[in-house]
């Protein structure tokens, strides 16, 4: 069975400081993993995805995530937070690695950026 656990429901950082949003996954298969972001009144936007190529995945807006199989983790990082990064972030695992399949979402982490 697939599942993800987002360890923090809320993270608060100062503008210009690093961001770390934590995610652990559980999967019966070699997983595909995603991070989605949701800004207020907007749809879920894909930040990045891991599909068994490079373990360090770079996404949009300066975000990246590292797949660590030994730790079953897929934490999202950014070196320097910007005010526009304030949003809800979802770690997501896919049922299988290829084709189109349903996604399993974490509970989300709300990122607040303090000026």
């Amino acid at each position, binding site marked *: 069975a697939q599942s993800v656990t987002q360890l923090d429901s809320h993270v608060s950082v100062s503008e210009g400081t690093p961001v770390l949003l934590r995610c652990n996954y559980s999967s019966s298969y070699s997983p595909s993993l995603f991070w989605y972001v949701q800004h207020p009144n907007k749809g*879920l936007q*894909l930040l990045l995805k891991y*599909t068994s190529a490079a373990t360090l995945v770079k996404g949009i807006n300066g975000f990246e995530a590292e797949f660590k199989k030994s730790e079953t983790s897929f934490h999202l990082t950014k070196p320097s937070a910007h005010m526009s990064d304030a949003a809800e972030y979802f770690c997501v695992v*896919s049922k299988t690695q290829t084709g*189109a399949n*349903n*996604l399993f*979402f974490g509970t989300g982490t709300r990122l607040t950026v303090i000026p």
Partner: protein
Amino acid sequence: EPEVTQTPSHQVTQMGQEVILRCVPISNHLYFYWYRQILGQKVEFLVSFYNNEISEKSEIFDDQFSVERPDGSNFTLKIRSTKLEDSAMYFCASSPRTSGSTDTQYFGPGTRLTVL
């Protein structure tokens, strides 16, 4: 950049009434999905749709729910007799079905359904 759109953004209905939530997927996409998020809970998969039929559905997607692609552009979710517990944000998504790699699902902004 093409995007998934959903209407209405907010729907209020009385318990027992039928509602239809509408989605326009990205035009060259072949897989379509509905998810929902009850306030304070996880986003949950409801159903996936491909080649004019349901390809997979979750336990949530019971006989009260149905999906349809009535024309070449719209994808709808119908709830026949709404219950209070159907109150949630409903997200539509579509994906292009890229062979040999993991498909990326593109989400709409959601429809907030409130059942009174």
